[in-house]
């Protein structure tokens, strides 16, 4: 990796939700530079929990780690006031489902503008202009009109783009995208991904892409973390994904039917308890 200090440095992060016995995330360690990191894993493996833990958005969970730094800030000890500065401005997160992630009774544009006004002292007019600019940056055709729409009046793809606009408005250094496209139709999915990719490249920011779709992560990320039952079982460069050594990763890759692929029986995963051991410790 580069010699400069990584933007994000996490060591042995564990998260346990209050009222549950086993932690949802156990001993997760990784670092992130100005690159695109994918986190994949099956449902419930703790992907979103990791993302939310980084922003300290989990009021009902216990968070422990040996180290959790974002640039110069120690996230572990940072007080809420410090986090308010970070959130939105320096790190932000694109939430999964636009249907639920936008305030249903506030116009979309205002919600975007609010993100800007929270961090930048400016007039309403300026914020509005900035928001509209951002809306066109995410390729919304008639940003002036969309600005005044309510969330239920926009389609899923548009909603997702509004989310992206809102989260990238204040030029954060780190963006966590939590399954940004899984709620969308295949036809819109690619468009949204392209926009996101374009913006990230343009601004040169760190991106964590959370998804359960291996193939997607492979094409959009530089590196991939594979999670299984709250642990990272394998870390790989995206292009090496086909050479994954962990049987879980291999199994996931093989189980996917492919267009034009053979119609033979699909290989299925045989889960083993030993997978719960961290990958490094296996021979």
């Amino acid at each position, binding site marked *: 990796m580069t010699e400069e200090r990584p933007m994000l440095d996490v060591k042995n992060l564990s998260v346990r939700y209050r009222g549950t016995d086993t932690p949802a995330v156990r001993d997760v360690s990784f670092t992130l530079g100005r690159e695109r990191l994918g986190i994949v894993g*099956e*449902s419930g493996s703790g992907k979103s929990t990791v993302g939310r833990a980084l922003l300290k958005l989990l009021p009902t969970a216990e968070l422990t780690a040996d180290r959790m730094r974002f640039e110069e800030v120690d996230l572990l000890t940072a007080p809420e006031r410090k986090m308010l500065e970070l959130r939105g401005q320096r790190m932000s997160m694109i939430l999964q489902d636009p249907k639920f992630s936008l305030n249903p009774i506030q116009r979309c544009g205002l919600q975007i503008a609010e993100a800007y006004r929270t961090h930048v002292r400016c007039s309403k007019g300026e914020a509005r202009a900035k928001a509209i600019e951002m809306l066109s940056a995410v390729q919304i055709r008639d940003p002036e009109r969309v600005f005044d729409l309510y969330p239920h009046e926009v389609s*899923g793809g548009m909603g997702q783009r509004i989310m992206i606009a809102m989260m990238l408005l204040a030029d954060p250094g780190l963006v966590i995208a939590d399954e940004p496209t899984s709620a969308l*139709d*295949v*036809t819109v*999915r*690619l468009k949204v991904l392209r926009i996101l990719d374009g913006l990230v490249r343009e601004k040169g920011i760190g991106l964590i892409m959370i998804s*359960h*779709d*291996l*193939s*997607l992560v*492979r*094409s959009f990320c530089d590196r991939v973390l594979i999670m299984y039952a709250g642990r990272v079982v394998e870390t790989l460069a995206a292009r090496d994904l086909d050479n994954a050594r962990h049987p879980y990763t291999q*199994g*996931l890759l093989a*189980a*996917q*039917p*492919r*267009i*034009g*692929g053979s*119609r033979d*029986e*699909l*290989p*299925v*995963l045989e889960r083993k308890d030993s997978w719960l051991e961290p990958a490094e410790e296996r021979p």
Partner: protein
Amino acid sequence: MKPVSVEHMSIRFGAVTILPDVSFDVAAGECFGLVGESGSGKSTILRCASMLLSIWTGDVTIGGRSVREMPLNERCRTLQMVFQDPYGSLHPRHSIRTVLSEPLKIQGLDDRERRMREALGDVGLPASFLDRYPHQLSGGQRQRVAIARALILEPEVLLLDEPTSALDVSVQAEILNLLVRLREERGFTYIMVSHDLAVIDHMCDRFAVMQSGEIVEVLPREAIKGNEATHPYARELIGASLEYESVV
């Protein structure tokens, strides 16, 4: 093995017409796919065909008999459905035993214990699962139970409404394998809804592309790979899927 034929199916909710006029035929023992954007009416077709919705017009015949004219019992034993969400398709308060014995009781079938064990065996679950409750099962296991419930009345036509889209790829593979095996062994006729062309390609012989309530094109499976569709929307859909898969 019975052929299914949908003729001029049309339904409206209030002022909105959901399906203007849908017709297609499925050969006996065929697996027929339905794809299309979200909200295009795929599930609605299945719900109409199974008479879960009854206010539609047109007709559906199975083996030459109209589903409307079939008595309830016969219809239940001809056609069953598997739903999309494995978390919602099992009653959270019923044990698997209740889930499976209920249809037998309703239909007045005897030898229940054996039938239940067999059905569970067919979907690859041990008989000990009979006394579990849905919340003690994983998504894939639930979907198997849902399939077992459909199988226990020994129907001839299975309607599959996105049976795997709520599941992980790894679990999806198990279910798809199961469905393929069952069709080979018993010769069911399937109508399967999916939004994933890879799954359609893996399972089906022919499929219909739907857009806002209408079937824009019916294509054979082979048409996917080379995107041989003619209708623009069908082309776009297949194109996007192909592109997604290749980019990806």
